[in-house]
């Protein structure tokens, strides 16, 4: 099993697609940082105006921590898309290249193979999210320096500088679970359609639809919200609330874990019985 996982990781990191996705993510972060560095004063002046009118602000409010939070906030729809470009490929590329036939004629079990691929998928998500976390944070700290953070979640939240990194790490850890859940769904589509593009398009479609329904916070649609995965994805922001609502976050984690288990079980069952006729 260890060998299989290492082989899957080896194939993953031999593919140009993997590095392209990393490069895009880092580039997006750098663009955001540079954009804010050059023209951010006006924007922040506007954003912080209501606070400035009521509070006496001392110190560096526009700092690297705030920028890293804003960068993640800006990209939380883009990141899942970048991730599934690679994770769907882990599964469907074997069908597209025909290598699934070569793999399954080796002395390995189908369950072992898909388990190794799932582990490789999780490893990629973890590495990708860590790269995203670092590329959102480090350049921002270099360009904007350190300081306390003011964010707008259920009102104004003041995050003191010493607690920020811990909250940031927890938010990234939570996002890893979210992204594994989304990737698990995309994995099922990749195995169902045996085609990377179809799996990506359907997953993006569901992501957009779910996000769209989530924005209707009234009437019929509001009842649906707890069943939307994007509703739970967004809970990473709660780590930046002054008193972290642990129960809400635990509920979101449970939802995401159930989602992961559901799609993993469905994918394994499908793969085990799959007729490889191509």
């Amino acid at each position, binding site marked *: 099993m260890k*060998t*299989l996982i*290492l*082989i899957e990781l*080896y*194939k993953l990191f*031999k*593919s*140009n697609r993997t590095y392209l996705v990393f490069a895009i993510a880092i580039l997006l972060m750098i663009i955001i940082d540079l954009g804010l560095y050059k023209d951010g004063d006006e924007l922040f002046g506007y954003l912080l105006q209501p606070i400035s009118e009521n509070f006496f602000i001392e110190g560096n409010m526009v700092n690297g921590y705030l920028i890293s939070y804003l960068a993640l906030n800006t990209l939380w729809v883009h990141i899942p898309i970048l991730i599934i470009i690679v994770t769907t490929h882990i599964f469907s590329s074997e069908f597209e*290249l*025909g*290598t*699934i*036939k*070569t*793999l*399954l*004629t*080796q*002395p*390995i079990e189908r369950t072992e193979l898909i388990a190794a691929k799932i582990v490789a998928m999780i490893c990629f998500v973890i590495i990708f999210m860590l790269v995203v976390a670092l590329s959102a944070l480090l350049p921002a700290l270099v360009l904007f320096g350190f300081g306390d953070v003011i964010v707008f979640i259920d009102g104004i939240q003041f995050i003191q500088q010493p607690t920020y990194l811990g909250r940031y790490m927890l938010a990234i850890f939570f996002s890893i679970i979210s992204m594994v859940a989304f990737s698990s769904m995309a994995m099922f589509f990749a195995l169902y359609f045996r085609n990377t593009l179809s799996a990506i398009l359907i997953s993006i479609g569901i992501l957009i639809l779910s996000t769209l329904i989530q924005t209707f916070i009234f009437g019929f649609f509001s009842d649906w919200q707890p069943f939307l995965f994007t509703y739970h994805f967004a809970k990473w922001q709660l780590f930046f609330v002054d008193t972290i609502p642990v129960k809400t976050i635990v509920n979101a984690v449970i939802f995401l874990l159930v989602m992961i288990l559901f799609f993993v079980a469905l994918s394994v069952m499908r793969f085990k*019985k799959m*007729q*490889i*006729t191509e």
Partner: protein
Amino acid sequence: MKLFKVTDLNLKLGGKTILKDVSFHLEKGKITGLIGPNGSGKSSLIKVLAGLVFPDRGAICIENDTTSTFLELRNKSGFLIDSPALYPFLDATENLNLFCKLNKKHLEVESLLNMVGLAGIGEKKVKHFSTGMKQRLSIAQSLIGDPEVLILDEPFNGLDPNGANDLADLLKSLNKAGKSILISSHLLRDMEILADEFIVIYRGEIVLQVNKETLQREDKKIILTFQDRIGNEALAYLKDLHAEILDNGNVVLVLCPDIIASVITKLVGLGDVPVNMETLTVLQERYLDITK
């Protein structure tokens, strides 16, 4: 000696019958040709043997063990299924090393590449390989687990005549080294030269299983072409041999292989020299009859 025996194999895909009551056996140490026209079920049968497709019904008995499974056959076989399928973003050595690891084998990859005629190009990415090179590399991959049997689906597809000859030589040498080989192909004449045993499949059913010795003993159909009209004496002689004279003047005879030479000598002696002789084996004849 039978290496394995398949009985009553049935497969339906999407409601369509692909294989129907397929029964055959593979002789140990022989090259067996699985012959049939395109769409006859050759690839599906091989995929069942490889464990890629699960049959609706059917059993396999490997070396007289009635409890055998298709998975056991897969574990002792090397496969090449359809077109060569390797990782294009890896080079030849990386591809083979990857499959060595999967098979838990520590092999000298370079010697494998030498064996299939790919020496010195181990560091070339597979995406830059020609079809023939990919085919050879796939065969190298199928040899990694040192399998007792090689099962190859249309290995001559996409190869130029030289490449096909090289591959045939390679398969013969592997067979001499003790490997049993099952090759599916629609190229009847190539298979007749290469194989010792023949299985003909048509519309998902096995219609013939025969070995080369039996075929060589059986009567052959020959078609003689003469430049001029045949003389009366030769005509009478041919009629005694139950020859069929075609409208175009060609003569069709069914003869025991032992007397073909004496018949030709007699015709030459009578002054009627055939300018061409086409020989159809029983296999070719039956194959053509079946697939007409």
